[in-house]
């Protein structure tokens, strides 16, 4: 039997509040902590063979995959299966992981099923946590007491990603819908179905939308359908990016760029020119993961 780490897949990653560390989670429930400074600015004299390897590798108690990560000032929030846990950054950045500081359980409807917390998004004031889950719902939790405030239901299949901006939340699901929610009413007020747009749809890859993100006026989303830039109010596909991918898994705005990731490759696209220019690999992909290909995410 080969070592399973040869077939490792990194599902999510986030930066520590100090910006010095990158934390990545994989399907085997392992959490790798990379020292960015050591990797990007290696001291030549101290260069060893494993300088670009993880500094620490923690294993989360249950061997469930780590589906999503988010970070507050104080806590690293891990979305796993059936639960969301918060770990103090101090323990994460030390040799031994210890126990989680808090835990929010998300119980599945039947024993056979289990709920993946596929996406986590923190509101800008760091008070509310939005979790897009495998049971087709987006849960909103208060970080003060860990209580679920409300549930956004409307998707008919599991949710791939959650993102928000300006009192709006966008969620993308396996059912092929991208939904826009109003924070105040907890209802969706708009629904986008990229696979119905002939310019965007790719039937052989499926209808699923792997990722969606908001800016002031735009939504970027992609998955089975092509990566495209949609106008929020008109819900029209303004730009369709023709990329030879096998399904988009990650897309988000960064300054003037759109960064998108898919199987094996991650590339950044400049939006302002409205044409795709390969700008090399995004900064955060610089970190390799335990001698394997970090295949899925940026």
């Amino acid at each position, binding site marked *: 039997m080969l*070592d*399973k780490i*040869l*077939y490792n897949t990194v599902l999510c990653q986030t930066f520590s509040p100090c910006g010095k560390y990158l934390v990545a989670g994989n399907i085997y429930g392992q959490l790798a902590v990379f020292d960015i400074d050591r990797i990007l600015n290696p001291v030549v004299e101290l260069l060893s063979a494993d300088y670009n390897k993880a500094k620490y590798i923690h294993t989360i108690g249950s061997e469930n995959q780590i*589906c999503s990560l988010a970070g507050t000032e104080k806590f690293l929030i891990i979305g796993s299966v059936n639960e969301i846990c918060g770990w103090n950054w101090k323990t994460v950045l030390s040799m031994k992981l210890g126990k989680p500081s808090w835990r929010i359980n998300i119980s599945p409807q039947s024993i*056979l099923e289990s709920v993946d917390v596929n996406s986590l998004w923190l509101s800008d004031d760091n008070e509310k946590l939005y979790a897009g889950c495998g049971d087709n719902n987006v849960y909103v939790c208060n970080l003060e007491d860990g209580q679920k405030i409300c549930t956004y239901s409307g998707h008919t299949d599991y949710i791939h990603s959650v993102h928000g901006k300006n009192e709006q939340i966008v969620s993308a699901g396996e059912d092929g819908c991208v939904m826009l929610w109003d924070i105040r009413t907890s209802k969706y007020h708009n629904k986008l179905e990229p696979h119905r747009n002939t310019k965007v749809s790719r039937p052989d890859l499926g209808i699923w939308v792997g990722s969606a993100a908001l800016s002031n006026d735009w939504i970027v989303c992609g998955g089975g359908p092509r990566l495209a830039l949609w106008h929020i109010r008109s819900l029209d596909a303004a730009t369709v990016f023709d990329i030879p991918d*096998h399904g988009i*898994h990650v897309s988000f705005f960064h300054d003037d760029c759109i960064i998108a990731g898919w199987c*094996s490759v991650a590339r950044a696209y400049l939006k302002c020119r409205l044409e795709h220019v390969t700008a090399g690999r995004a900064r955060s992909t610089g970190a390799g993961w335990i001698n394997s290909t970090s295949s899925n995410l940026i």
Partner: protein
Amino acid sequence: MGKEDTSKKRRKLVSSSSISEGIKQSPADVYKRVVEFEENESQLRPAEKDANLFRKICQEIRQLFADIAELKSKDTDEAQEKINAKRVEASLHIVSLKKLNRLEKVRTRAGRDALHKEKQRVDSTHLLLQNLLYEADHLNKEVTKCLQFKSKDEEIELVSVEEFYRDAPKEVSRPEVTKTNEHQLQLARLEWELRQRRELAGSCNELIASKERVAAAIAAARSRLDALSPHLRDVLKATKPLQECLALRLDEKRDEARTASLLPTPLFLLYANSSAYSDALGANIVTVAISGDEDEARRIDQNNIADSELIVSNDSDSDQENHDEDRREKKKRHHRTSKVSKEEKAEAKKREVFKKHPLHVQLSVKVNDTSLNLSFSYLLHLKIVVVTLTVTLSKPVIGVSAADVLNENCILNELYPADTGNDSPHPATAYLMKSAGITEGFHYFISEVGRPYIWAQRMCGLDFMATVLDDSKSNKIIQPCPTLSVTTVENFIFTLRKRLKSRVELMKELQDLESGKITPVVDTEWPTRISGSLTQWQSISWPEFRQSPSTSFVISDGLVTQNDMLYRAIITRQSAKLVALVALKSDYPKETPIFSLTLHWNGTHHAGINDDIRDIERVINTDFGSEQVKKPTLSMQMTKLLTYLDVLLETTGSSEFPPDKVMLSPVRGRNRVKPYKFLKQGTGVFVQF
């Protein structure tokens, strides 16, 4: 005064003449006496006085002549008279001059005689001196000759002086004399030496005599023993019917033991240990035999005994010979002799390097009906053991790839990790081959010679690793170590039987696979309904394996190497075609097979570009998602692969593949994994984790 002298003389003359006249002797006598007298006179008178006298007389005569001349000029009688007187006087003077002259003559003669006499005396004295010098020289030479003379006694080694005084009796050593006289000391020491030597010679003779006596005794005993052997042979002959009757193999064993003694040490160790193992565990598992030319072996054995004392020097000699030969060859090249003979010579040399000992040990290991015959030979010059293998199968194997598994080369490949047997484990081999002018590596000759596996060396008690580690004594000759052989033989037979067993099983599996049949998994934990089918199974070469883009990952990580057995399986279901490249390690089933997949359906997909294929490879190649402790077999993995292909195709939602498997959700998670884990619940359900 002169006047007086002359007058005196005259008187004397007168008196003497008067004496002589008076005696009147015989004239001869008189003459003699006169002569004698004259001589005496001349002796007695000093020559200077005579000279003065002579001058004076001459003066007087001149004076007289002058007077005469003067008188003559006067020419008077008186003058005449005076002239007469003067004439007389002058005549007298002339007489005395005459006398003086005579005296002078005598004196001169006497002086001459004396000179002559003196000369003669000097000559004779000189002659005497010469004689004496010559004699002295001769004597000197004789003396040096004597001094240079070496006496015999100097060559004799004597005991030291202290020892001599300590050991020798007083009457020989005589310290009172010898302490002061060195010559006597030497004599005494020589005498003592002589005495001692005589004693020793005596004892030597005695010993020789006793030795001869003992030799005679031994000869007598030997002849008695020789006489015994025909009797023993008779006895042996007599027991033969009994042996046959009781089915004892005593004779054969004895023969074999005799042959075994001719084996080189490493092979003998192998033979002894493996035959012991065979005796202990029964001949149906392992049998050992010796084959080869016994007479030739005996000859080599005898040569070895003769040479054994001079191994080291011999080696260097042979080196020298090689050198010489080289040189000769070079010379020949200069002379441009025929090229063919040179090549033949090189060929002969090569053959000499790879010369095997004429005896081989045959080890055959049996599992069920398949038996492996290993032939171990010892290379005399390279000092390593090589193995050739033949496989005997109970029934012929159907199928190409299945037959390969039991192939001679393949079955022993990496029996122990990294032991491919491609190169000699002996560090000296390369040098030996180079010195013999062989430029090719050892692996070039493997087909003719056999493979020098490390386990074969260890079974024969040769451990080259130890010498490599023990650098300080790297020059020592590698000696077979019996304990190493004992432990290795058992381990090897065990490992080989295990390998053989697994290979026979693998062969059956491969036979089935090649005919498109997948042995159903006995394990009930797996669904039996499979929609795809195996349409092709064949072995492929390394370049073919390497060409496929799906294998770049396993090759670059060194998970699959050229030494592995490589196969291609093609699985089809409707329009989908899955090509699986399978790498089987020599250690199978200890190491599970490694699959590299390529799916041809809606384009070409492999793990590098498609996550679904990568997921399938993950669940097949790693133990992720399976709780089984047991290592999966090839056919079990093939079954799984077919099932996973079904799952993958059915989750695409294409109408070509109607859902047949029960699954909770077709995809899950952001990476959209398909359900590859089978849960035995109800009819069985597929889940992701």
